[in-house]
C-alpha cells in the first residue's frame, strides 16, 4: 500500500478528481495549503504588483493499493498540467504505507482502502 500526496494548482482540482474517477480511484482527501516553489503568482495591491511568498495550492491524499499507484500518478499527471506544463503545476509524492483501517468496519489492509 502506498500513500500518494499530490500538490496541485487549485483550478485543476475538478479535472484531477474527474481523471481519478475515470481511473476508478474515488476515495481521496483534499486540503487547502500554500506552497512555495518556483512559481510566481502575481497579485495586485493598489497599483503595485506583489509576489506573495506563498501561493495557494491544493493537497490531495490518496491511499492506494500497489497496483493503483501508476494509474493514479498517470491520471494526476494528465489532469493537473496546464497545457504543456507550467511552473507551479505541482508535485506528486509517493510514500510507503503500513496499514489502512476502515473505521466503520475495522477491517484492515488492501480491502479497506
Amino acid at each position, binding site marked *: 500500500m502506498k500513500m500518494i500526496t499530490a500538490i496541485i494548482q487549485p483550478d485543476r482540482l475538478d*479535472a484531477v478528481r474527474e481523471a481519478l474517477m475515470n481511473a476508478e480511484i474515488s476515495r481521496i482527501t483534499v486540503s487547502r495549503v500554500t506552497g512555495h516553489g518556483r512559481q510566481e503568482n502575481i497579485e495586485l495591491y493598489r497599483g503595485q504588483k506583489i509576489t506573495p511568498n506563498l501561493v495557494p495550492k491544493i493537497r490531495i491524499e490518496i491511499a492506494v493499493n500497489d497496483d493503483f499507484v501508476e494509474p493514479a500518478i498517470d491520471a494526476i499527471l494528465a489532469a493537473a498540467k496546464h497545457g504543456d506544463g507550467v511552473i507551479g503545476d505541482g508535485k506528486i509524492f509517493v510514500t510507503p504505507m503500513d496499514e489502512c483501517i476502515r473505521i466503520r468496519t475495522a477491517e484492515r489492509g488492501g480491502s479497506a482502502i
Partner: protein
Amino acid sequence: MAIHNRTLALVLLGAAALPISAHAQEPVVDTGITAWMLTSTALVLLMVPGLAMFYGGLVRTKNVLGTMMHSFAAMAIVGVLWMVCGYALCFGPSVCPWTGWSWDYFFLRGIDQSITEGGIPEYVFAMFQGKFAIITPALIAGAFAERVRFRGYCLFIALWSLLVYNPLCHIIWGGGWLTGKAIDFAGGTVIHISAGVAGLVAALYLGARRGYPKTAMHPNNLVMTMMGAGLLWVGWFGFNAGSSVASGLKTAQALTMTQIAAAGGALCWMVIESLHLKKATALGMVSGILAGLVAITPAAGDVLPMGALLLGFVASVVCYLAIQMKNRLGYDDSLDVFGIHGVAGIVGAIGLVFFLRPGAGTGAFGSQMGHQVEGVLISMGYSAVATILLLVLVEKTLGLRMSEESEMAGMDHSLHGETGYGLINPN
C-alpha cells in the same frame, strides 16, 4: 401613488428649474420631507453593498470579489452615467413616447436651485432615482454570476442602463405612455421584472457555468448572505417608503406594507421548506424575505396590510415553485434573478389588483388589471428583446463569457488579480 407624485414632480420641475421667479406659488422646501428623502437615498444606497454581500456570499470562494465587483461597478458606472444623461433621459419631458430629454438635466446642470412642487430640492429626487438606476443592472449580475468578464460586464450594464432601464423608467414613471396607468409604486415592473427577465435571457444566452448542474456549487459564505439580506431589508424601507416622495401617510403605508410582506414572505418560505425538506434553511429564510420585498415593491403604496401579508405568502410559494422548475429545466440562472426578482415582481404587479386599498388605482378592477398586465408584458418584452441584442453586441466586441481556464481559476484571480479571503491561506 408614487406614479402621480413622480409625474407631478416632473411636470413642475420644469418650471422650478427656470430662473427664480417672483410669483407667489414658488415651492418651498419642506425640511421633513427632504429629511426623509435624503435618508431614503442613503438607505437605497445601502442596498448596493447589501446586494454585493447577498450575491457575494452565494458564489464559490474563488469568485467572491468578482461578484461583489458587479454591484460596485454599477455604483461607479451607472452612478456617473446617471448624472451625465440618465436623469435627463428618464425624467426629462418626453421627446418621444419612449424617452425624455432636457438639456437642463444634462450633467444635472440646470437644477442646482430647483425645488420640486413636493417640497424637496430636485437634486434629492434625482439622486434617489439614481440609486434605482444603479441597483437594477446590479441585480441582473446574479443570473450570470461566476462566468462573465469584467470589461464585458461593464459595457453591458452601461448599455443596458441607457437603453433598457432609462426608457422603461420614462415610459412607466417619467411621463411616457404608461405613466399614470399601471401602478408600479416603487419599481416592481421597471426594476425587478425588467432585471429578472434580462437575467433569464442572459443566463440562457451565455449558458451554464462549467460543471453545472453536475458539480455542486457551494455558497462560500452564507453568513455574509444573511448579513446582506438584513441590509437589503433595511434599505428597502428607503426604496419603497421613499418612493412616496413624501413623509406622510403614504410613506407610512408603504413602509408598513414592506415590513409585513417581508416578514410574510420569510415565514411562508420557512413553512414550505419545513414541509417539503423537513428543514428550514437560512438561504430559504433570506430568499423568502427577498420574495416578499420584491412582491410588495409595486404595491407598497396601494394595498392594505392583509393584502401585503398575502402578497408575501403568495410570492414565496410561486418563487419556490419557479426555482423548482428551473432545476428541472436545467438552465443556470445562478442566483435566481428571474426566479426571485422576475417572478415575485410579476406576482406583485398582477397580484396587487386584488388587494387595492379602496380608492387606489384607476377604478375598475378589470381596467386596472389590464394596465398591470400591459405594464408587465411591455417590461418583459422590451427587456428581453433589448437584452438579447445587447448581449450579442457585447459578446461579439469586448467578449462577455469568460474563457474556460479563467472560469476554472476563478474571477478573483484571473480578472482582478486578488484573493477574497486572505485569511484562509496561511501566510
